[in-house]
């Protein structure tokens, strides 16, 4: 089990929806709202041990759980 796998599992656990997989769009489907985005960022920060700069919070990096893992997974500890 790699850190990336654990990171992906933590994110899936956070979203906690039976039909959500790592490539499900999180925002177009309304799964993440203005409250959940803050908690989602907290999960990323906890996994990486670093704050997520606001400039990194763009769709390219957050569209799906896979996008989040691709962007921040290298730093997952």
């Amino acid at each position, binding site marked *: 089990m790699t850190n990336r796998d654990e990171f992906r599992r933590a994110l899936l656990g956070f979203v906690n929806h039976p039909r959500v997989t790592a490539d499900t769009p999180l*925002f177009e489907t309304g799964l993440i*709202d*203005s409250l*959940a*985005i*803050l908690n989602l960022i907290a999960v990323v920060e906890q996994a990486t041990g670093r704050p997520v700069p*606001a400039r990194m*919070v763009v*769709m390219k990096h*957050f569209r799906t759980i896979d996008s989040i893992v691709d962007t921040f997974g290298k730093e997952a500890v």
Partner: protein
Amino acid sequence: MTSAPIRQQSELSDFEAVDARIRDLALREGAEEIAYPVLIAGEVLRAAEYDRAFPHLLMAGVSACKPDVEPKHLFTAGNLSVPAWFLSPAVCYHTYAQFAGRVLTDSCTVTARGKCFRNEDRKLCFGRRQLEFEMREIVLLGGQEWIEERIPSFQRLVESLARECDISGTWETAEDPFFLPRAQGKALMQRLLKTKREFCVNALAIASINRHGTFFGERFHISDAGGTPIHTACIAFGLDRWAAARNL
């Protein structure tokens, strides 16, 4: 000192001509024209979460609890009523309140012009930052697909109006001045979803297109015939800024 420019003669005609043109275009696009009051109920702004997102911009209509005190104490901190009414910060909140609780069997376009008020802590500059300004808005209420089909035509409408006025501007993805950190989540969602586009002239936004998703449909219980919250969007024109941009 005034909170907004005083306009007369040619300035007033020019200002009214800009609004008349936007109004005509809106009516041609099938909008129904509505006139709203200047004051808006606190409960409407609370339902819209305006007090969470932009508390720093809100201006209230307060009265003195005890009018018989010395005039110098009339509007001091201990003698202010809890305001039930606020000065409208934008026009479209009236529309959501007007449609609250309704089932829309068909999509709907509304246009309204109104005086708006926002508490500016920076130096005021007419045509750029004013405490009091006028906006014309076009509000779309309906299904997501219908709104997405309509928005490009309103975008072209803004561009053609700018050309008519000899204004050269560009569209930019924009963010509202959310109250941070409390409204950080709303600010991040707006950036992620790119829900706000502004038509800018020299870094000054003179019009904007705002997609709200089902935010207002949910909060004001406006639904389609199947009971699903409707989507909304608004196209806002800052008339003071538009008039000023013509003279740049």
